[in-house]
């Protein structure tokens, strides 16, 4: 990893020129000192009250027995590490964690590869084709998940789905009545396609913005130097999309790891629980089973996994000279 980790310069403002010496340290008045805190105030307040405080409560709840009865009566029953013991001694938890990890990795990798591919493609397309492509991407992105899960179930339907009907028409007779949801892997693949399909537009737009931020003369210079497509990409585009790629990887990991709506809506984690991921487990234990303490323990473990996985990157962001001034 390098130290050029400026992030989210999303829509194409060019990388700032290096300004090594611009560190003014003028005398500051009291109001100058207070300014940053006042400006951060609203954001800090909302995030503390509505994200951090609930999260802290989840941590507390994970050490309590909190079923429907306790919740309704407002009882507080501390049970120490019982909920964690309950979760961690269940062999299913480890299988589900592993499955979630693999699922996330595959999803993030495919989303980024396809997104980067489309971003590069957009750069090379003629104007009207690019607009057509962009509108199509937006349509996919902006369609509500409730709707897209329904339409995917419909397209992959065993008998009435357009996919099987088309495959049969093309001569693949074995797809007559083929069930896409009979195994966990196949179910997760369909869910994965759904998630990737809706996640790619955001990634593609962000990376495209980074790409067009690259000054054109750099490409021309590269062309003069005899660089062909691939080496021009590596020499010119890569440095400008790299930080964006790292940021989008980070965000994709967070989003895909926590993907719940699509996984639940397609098959509720079935068949035989073989497409259950950690968020589904959390829901099954919590709302479905009314064991909110156990569910909170799962949530805390999920957070621990996420922080562990992304820790290097987060530390880099917090410490790197780029996030310094």
């Amino acid at each position, binding site marked *: 990893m390098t130290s050029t980790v400026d992030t989210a310069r999303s829509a194409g403002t060019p990388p700032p020129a290096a300004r090594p010496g611009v560190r003014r340290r003028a005398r500051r008045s009291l109001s100058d000192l207070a300014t940053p805190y006042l400006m951060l105030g609203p954001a800090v307040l909302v995030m503390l009250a509505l994200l*951090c*405080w609930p999260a802290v409560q989840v941590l507390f709840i994970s050490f309590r027995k909190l079923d429907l009865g306790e919740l309704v009566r*407002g009882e507080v029953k501390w049970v120490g590490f019982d909920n964690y013991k309950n979760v961690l001694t269940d062999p299913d938890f480890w299988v589900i964690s592993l499955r979630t990890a693999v699922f996330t990795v595959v999803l993030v990798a495919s989303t980024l590869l396809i997104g980067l591919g489309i971003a590069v493609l957009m750069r090379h397309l003629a104007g009207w084709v690019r607009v057509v492509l962009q509108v199509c991407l937006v349509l996919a992105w902006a369609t509500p998940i409730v709707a897209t899960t329904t339409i995917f*179930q419909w397209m992959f339907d065993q*008998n009435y789905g357009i996919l099987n009907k088309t495959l049969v028409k093309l001569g693949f007779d074995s797809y007559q*009545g083929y*069930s896409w949801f009979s195994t966990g892997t196949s179910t997760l693949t369909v869910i994965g396609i759904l998630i990737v399909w809706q996640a790619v537009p955001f990634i593609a737009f962000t990376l495209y913005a980074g790409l067009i931020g690259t000054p054109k003369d750099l490409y021309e210079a590269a062309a003069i130097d005899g660089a062909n497509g691939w080496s021009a990409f590596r020499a010119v585009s890569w440095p400008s999309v790299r930080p964006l790629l790292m940021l989008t990887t980070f965000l994709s990991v967070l989003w895909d790891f926590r993907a719940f709506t699509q996984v639940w809506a397609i098959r509720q984690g079935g068949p035989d629980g073989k497409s259950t991921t950690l968020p589904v487990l959390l829901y099954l234990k919590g709302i479905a089973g009314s064991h909110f303490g156990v569910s909170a323990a799962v949530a805390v473990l999920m957070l621990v996994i996420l922080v562990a996985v992304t820790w290097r990157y987060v530390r880099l962001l917090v410490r790197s000279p780029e996030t310094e001034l």
Partner: protein
Amino acid sequence: MRVWSKALIGGVAVALTVAGCAGSGSSSSSSGTTTAPPAGPRTITVWLMNGSAPTTLTDELNKEFQDSHKDVTVKYEIQQWNGIQDKLTTALASNNPPDVIEIGNTQAPKFASDGVLEDVTANVNDFNGANWLASLKASGQWDGKQYAVPFYAANREILYRKDLFEQAGITAPPTSRQEWLDAIGKLKAKFGSDPNFQALYLPGQNWYTLLSFIYDEGGDIAKQDGKKFTGSLETPEVKAALDFYKQLVDVSGTKAPKDADEQTPEQAGIFGQGKVAMMVALPWEVATAAKSDPTIKDKTSGFPIPSKTAGQTAPVFQGGSDLAIPGNSKNKDLAREYLKLITSDKYQAQFAKAGMIPGTSKDVSALQADPVNAAMAKASPNGKSTPATPGWATIEAGQNPIKDMLTAYLTGAKTFEQATKDADDALNKAFSS
């Protein structure tokens, strides 16, 4: 870093005071003691589900209740099934929960066992207790006490096309499993040349139908021992039931998906296409089918699921709803009176007229007028519910091992032994959690 963590802790402390004692629970008024009803105008909140009681019934009911209770307003709110578990959970924990709620009979044991519903054991007689439907009564009981009151129920029957039966030379609806299979044979002989024809539409995960077969064989999905339930699928009875289900699927050549239930795609819609002679369904699915083809209504009739004993009807799974009073309700006195009114013969009769089996009345004569409803009513005395254990709610919320077992067995992905063992394990896990 250290400075920061101090700041964060400080911030959390502030948020703590702002949020007050969040998480420490609801108001202290949840003790359940009945205090004197407050004077002045009052409001009673009633939550019924989408598609349950007909509007004509509720309009009249709410009007009568308001007329007989001066200064009381009925706030009647229809809830959607989608996400109801989340909504009920939080509403019960709120400061002003609804006063009367409708809960599915398969959900009821969980709410009853968690002690969040008002004990109505003492009021059973006020609520027409002598006439309660057995399966619903059982679903509202926990530990010998009654927490929920039967509302209405329905059970599946076989809807069939009279015209197609006639053309195939079937004179009377089947009354035994053999006659049922024979009818399928005759229909196929007559219409089999049409590739889109299906003598019977039976998706692989119509587990309600399987339950009926299992009950008919004398089995059940779980054994009860006190409060403890254990899955009982690894039995010869279940084997016989599964085999008959498979036989139906094979013989009928149904094109229904093996990996989905009767809702995806909606079977009534397919019945409405006119190429299906029979389906296992609820009476009102005729109306859904008629949306595709209005003439289908007059061509359709129904007969009860035949038993393996000729001449009898098979026992059926009874789905339905209970009514209950949340333990935190502030208007329990009014809620009891509301329940008294809604469980009276007058309103229960309207359920029968609307094509449902009333929960607190034995009078099903209104169902006889329509042959489709009559077929349901005929099987209804032999109705059963799912195991009355709180663990069933987890299964109901999504992952149903019996559906997975059906698909695995029908597609040959698992042997009988393996499929039932996996399902039993999953059931036991749900029961014990």
